[in-house]
């Protein structure tokens, strides 16, 4: 019973809680039991405080008894990627350098979830400082893909995706800098969304690449994503890059469907390197939309092939500066017996950062160096504008959403690409442009390959066009039962 319960979409659980058919304590206990049962295999969690979760669940039930339920998320367990601050709990960013750090404050998304009554449960595994596409760069733990435990779950928010796929949590949050929500969502067969840059506050999200990072949700259904997005979105005075925009009732708007969408199909996303089974599944999805009256439009986004290069200049430049604070002086791990101050930095960072983090910090330091700034960083920013313009001119020409595969391949094997960073970087070629352009993107399951691995469909929307994007996604999601499939664990 508890397994079936934890695989239910959050919206259903919310209805059950509302009807009194379920208590938050029961639900939370079921989640805890499920994690106890399967997380040894999955490895989604870096930290769980079951006692705190049960206490929050009890509070929720009491509120509900008093008729003071806070909304649809009240009593629903939600997990956080371990890059989002939760007061009093560890924040490691899956790095040894933050091994002993306890966050003294809540991220804005965390306090909004608390205010909505959500039961916060667990800090989820990830690639160290969100750098990676397989969660293999975690400093602590490998996470397995629940659909095939020998495969990676994607990354960097691999724990957040795997936890939902494995029925350990109905809702989780991740962060997406170049695809870190959408790619693992695709590989784990769940829904994952990266909102428009500026829709969700980054306050309390440990920064990887500040101009690209966005927090976003993982869920079993598009409706669930809409439900939690409503809670976490909206302007925050503590984040100067958060946008002052009205947040619509996304979930209610899902039902106000229209069929006359114009869907752009960019030819650059269907070229070489795309796995044939992925292509087939995505083409089926295109036919679905056509059948529902959508206008399909083949489009070109000509600067797509520059995206990976631009990304690895901008993201590494920003990360080299963002990660400078982890230095052994204040709150991080600290190397023993340094010869002097510089040696303290060198040893602390040398011993505690993993190889991928070091690679990106060094790359970023290089591209910002005197004499190279104009050739790399400045140029990359200009190309970034071109990439955004590619999308904006298609939107101006009538395209409502852009449809692409999320990832060129389904999940690959653990260890398969760890020695080949360039090949690893290509896992994000379909997701990176969205971050560079600041656009919202969503990935959902559109089928399975012959090995039973999920395949992701990506939809990209206009800036702050989340309501429409969710509607288009919901149309597909609600008409298929891919989201009802559960892995054997």
């Amino acid at each position, binding site marked *: 019973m508890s397994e079936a319960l934890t695989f239910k979409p959050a919206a259903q659980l919310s209805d059950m809680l509302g009807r009194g058919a379920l208590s938050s304590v029961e639900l939370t206990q079921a989640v805890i039991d499920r994690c106890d049962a399967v997380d040894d295999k999955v490895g989604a969690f870096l930290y769980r405080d079951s006692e705190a979760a049960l206490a929050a669940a009890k509070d929720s039930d009491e509120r509900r008894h008093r008729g003071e339920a806070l909304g649809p998320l009240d009593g629903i367990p939600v997990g956080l990627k371990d890059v989002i601050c939760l007061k009093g709990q560890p924040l490691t960013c899956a790095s040894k350098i933050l091994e002993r750090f306890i966050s003294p*404050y809540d991220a804005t998304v965390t306090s909004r979830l608390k205010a909505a009554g959500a039961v916060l449960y667990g800090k989820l595994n990830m690639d160290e400082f969100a750098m990676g596409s397989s969660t293999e760069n975690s400093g602590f733990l490998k996470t397995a893909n629940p659909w095939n435990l020998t495969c990676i779950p994607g990354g960097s928010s691999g724990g957040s995706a795997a936890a939902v796929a494995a029925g350990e949590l109905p809702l989780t949050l991740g962060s997406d800098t170049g695809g870190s929500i959408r790619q693992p969502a695709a590989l784990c067969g769940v829904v994952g969304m990266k909102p428009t840059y500026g829709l969700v506050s980054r306050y*309390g999200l440990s920064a990887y690449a500040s101009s690209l990072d966005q927090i976003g949700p993982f869920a079993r259904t598009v409706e669930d994503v809409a439900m939690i997005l409503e809670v976490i979105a909206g302007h925050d005075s503590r984040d*100067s890059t958060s946008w002052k925009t009205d947040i619509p009732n996304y979930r209610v708007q899902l039902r106000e469907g229209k069929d006359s969408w114009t869907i752009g199909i960019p030819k650059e996303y269907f070229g070489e390197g795309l796995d044939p089974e992925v292509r087939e599944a995505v083409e089926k999805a295109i036919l679905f939309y056509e059948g529902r009256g959508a206008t399909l439009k083949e489009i070109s986004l000509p600067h797509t092939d520059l995206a990976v290069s631009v990304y690895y200049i901008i993201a590494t430049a*920003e990360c*080299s*500066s963002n990660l*400078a604070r982890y*230095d052994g*002086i204040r709150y991080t791990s600290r190397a023993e017996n340094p010869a002097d101050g510089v040696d303290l930095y060198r040893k602390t960072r040398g011993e505690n950062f993993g190889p991928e983090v070091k690679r990106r910090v060094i790359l970023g330091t290089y591209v910002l160096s005197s004499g190279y700034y104009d050739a790399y960083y400045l140029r990359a920013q200009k190309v970034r504008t071109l990439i955004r313009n590619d999308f904006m001119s298609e939107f101006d020409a009538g395209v409502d959403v852009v449809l692409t595969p999320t990832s060129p391949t389904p999940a690959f094997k653990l260890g398969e690409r760890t020695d080949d960073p360039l090949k690893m970087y290509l896992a994000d070629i379909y997701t990176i442009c969205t971050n560079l352009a600041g656009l919202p993107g969503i990935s959902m399951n559109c089928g399975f390959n012959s090995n039973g691995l999920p395949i992701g469909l990506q939809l990209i929307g206009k800036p702050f066009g989340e309501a429409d994007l969710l509607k288009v996604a919901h149309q597909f999601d609600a008409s298929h039962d891919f989201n009802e499939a559960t892995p054997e664990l």
Partner: protein
Amino acid sequence: MDYEPVIGLEVHVQLKTKTKMFTRVAYQYGEEPNTLTNPVIMGLPGTLPVLNKAAIEQTIRFGLLFGSEVPEISKWDRKNYFYPDNPKNYQLSQYDQPLCVGGSVEIELPGPSRNVMGEHKTIELTRAHLEEDVGKLTHFENDSLVDYNRAGTPLLEIVSEPVLRSPEECVAFLNALRVALSNAGISDCDMEKGQLRCDANVSVRPVGSDILNTRTEMKNLNSVAHVRDAVAYEIQRQTKVYQDGGRVVQETRRWNVDGGFTSSLRSKEHAHDYRYFPDPDLMPVKIPQETKDRLLGDLPELQFDMQRRFMEDYGLPYTLTSVLCPDLPLARFFEAAVAVYNKPRQIANYVANDLLRELAESGNEGEGGMPVSESPASPESIAGLVQLIDDGVISSQIAKAVFAEMFKTGKAPGDIVEAKGLKQSTDTGEIEGICREVIANNPKPVEQFKAGNEKAINALKGQVMKATRGKANPKMLDDLLRKLLGD
């Protein structure tokens, strides 16, 4: 060959704001270490900066005060370097789009004497920008401690063009900045509290040449005297290097306060590469014309403009203006008094001498006298006092005593004169009686006066004044005495 110095100063001024630059933590000097912090100040993971509008406005006011261009768009950059006093290991600063571009500061060099105005020069500014301050390190034998209380406080960096030509000009430049910034409420510029610190760039070149030779930089000079001495030393050192046929090396040098010399700290090869790039966490700032217009309306007059006006409009001598004008509250006090009674010269004397002396002698221990804003004697009462003298109600002698009483009690001068019966006596009969008595009792000065010694009459006047406790009208007394002595 004769050499002349070429000096540019970078002045760091802590802005007067209630809270820090990028988060709303209060700042005060002298608090327990690491108590004025929060997650943002400590650079904890996930924290983000939010601009302090007051700090931006203070910087714009600086620009407007000194005629800088304040561009419509200004942006924020990260200056990356590792140092334990720097919690994020990058400092938020402004690289290529500062809030203030250009501008100039009028300075006055020392005149031949205190009473004579010195030469005035205009020192052009390159720019001024806003950044965050860092924490403070204290070094011990085996370890160092860091206090982040100061970290993140707003710091205005003012960069001069390399147009200063002597240590004295540096001093005059710093003093002009201090006076203007504290009068405008932009900074208290208290050097003891580290609110004003200075880096000096010095080179020398043959007189008459317009080349810019290799320069050295001296960092963190925290008093005007240190700037003067370090610059003077460096001019001498570099001149000697050239005279001996050597080359000056581009480097950062440390000023050794106790030894009175500079020594090499790090060479150009070891200079930091700060890897500046635009801060992705802060949006550029747009400054609309209306903001500048509003802030412009709230700027005080600059010291030297005011001095010229006081000399022209009020006919004050340079000496009095050089006391009044650098001290804006005092100058405002003076003008308020003149507005009540238009005798600027006399009022200026009372304000610059009597009032300042009383203020200096009052106030709390260790706080450097009472501020003029707390003076018990108001501008109106000082104006009133001068008017009482002019009207012949009291003598200037009596006025001294009335002033002291005014300062002590805050009472109006008229009330004090009334209550203490200090009105000048014009009762000829009473004074004549006293005069006769004095003449009778002082045969010696009477004799001398009659013998033609004019000054001898003063001794007699003094006696009468003493007997009337100063209330005799001096003019009347003089007439009376002469009449009686002539009889």
